[in-house]
């Protein structure tokens, strides 16, 4: 099916009322979602770097970031960084 590979057609100029615009926006949103998945899902299928898995499994302490100050165990990394 080729249809889903194409950008949705704009309404004709005389049709450009709010309902048509909304329809086009909805069609574009569907198309965009398909294409973004097509473009980026390949990244999620790539094998995970072994050093990352080792890090998580606790065998890769040497891979910690160099900025040791930011790796203090009790620091909350969720907090927005300060200037």
């Amino acid at each position, binding site marked *: 099916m080729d*249809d889903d590979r194409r950008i949705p057609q704009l309404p004709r100029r005389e049709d450009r009322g709010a309902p048509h615009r909304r329809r086009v926006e909805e069609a574009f949103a569907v198309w965009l979602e398909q294409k973004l998945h097509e473009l*980026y899902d390949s990244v999620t299928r790539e094998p995970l770097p072994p050093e990352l898995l080792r890090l998580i499994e606790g065998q890769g302490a040497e891979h910690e970031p160099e900025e040791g100050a930011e790796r203090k165990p009790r620091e909350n990394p969720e907090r927005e960084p300060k200037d």
Partner: protein
Amino acid sequence: MPNEFHAQLITLLPRLRVQALALTRNRAAAEDLVQDAVANALAAQDSFTPGTNFAAWMHRILRNRFISTLRKQRDTTDIEDLPASAFAVAATHEDRLVLKELGRAVNRLPVDQREALFMVVLQGMSYEDVASATGCAVGTAKSRVFRARRQLQAWLMGEDRATGRSGEAQPSETDSRRDHRLRADAAASGA
């Protein structure tokens, strides 16, 4: 044997890599960002409350790490990448062109819009989770995704309707030429 925290982290890693790419637009920088964020998360795993939203918690860490790194590096990595593996499996030359065009347009979005768009569209996160992960109001998260879609539509479909901030990049002549081709394709398909 990994504990539950580690298992959740490993499960989330593929999505974190995509989100890191949304933030950095650069494969090498994205890999570094994920690794640093994982290290931060492991160091702070005691601060995670089991049963709460792990993905939102982890995305906050990734985001904060990105902000922190950005402040130190000041755009030293400005090489934009697109996932080459996607082009390898695209069915036709035309498909590859469309994907490349979309990838370039996505990379031109303001980072906050691209980030929110990826979270909603690719990660399947709710607007509430996006708001929680990015520290903004739910309405702001919705607005970012809406503006990202509108801006991409404007660029890709040739509508002169910039919806973002002033000073955003405008479509180039090459974009316009390709818009014409894409519109012709759309008309031919009867979409």
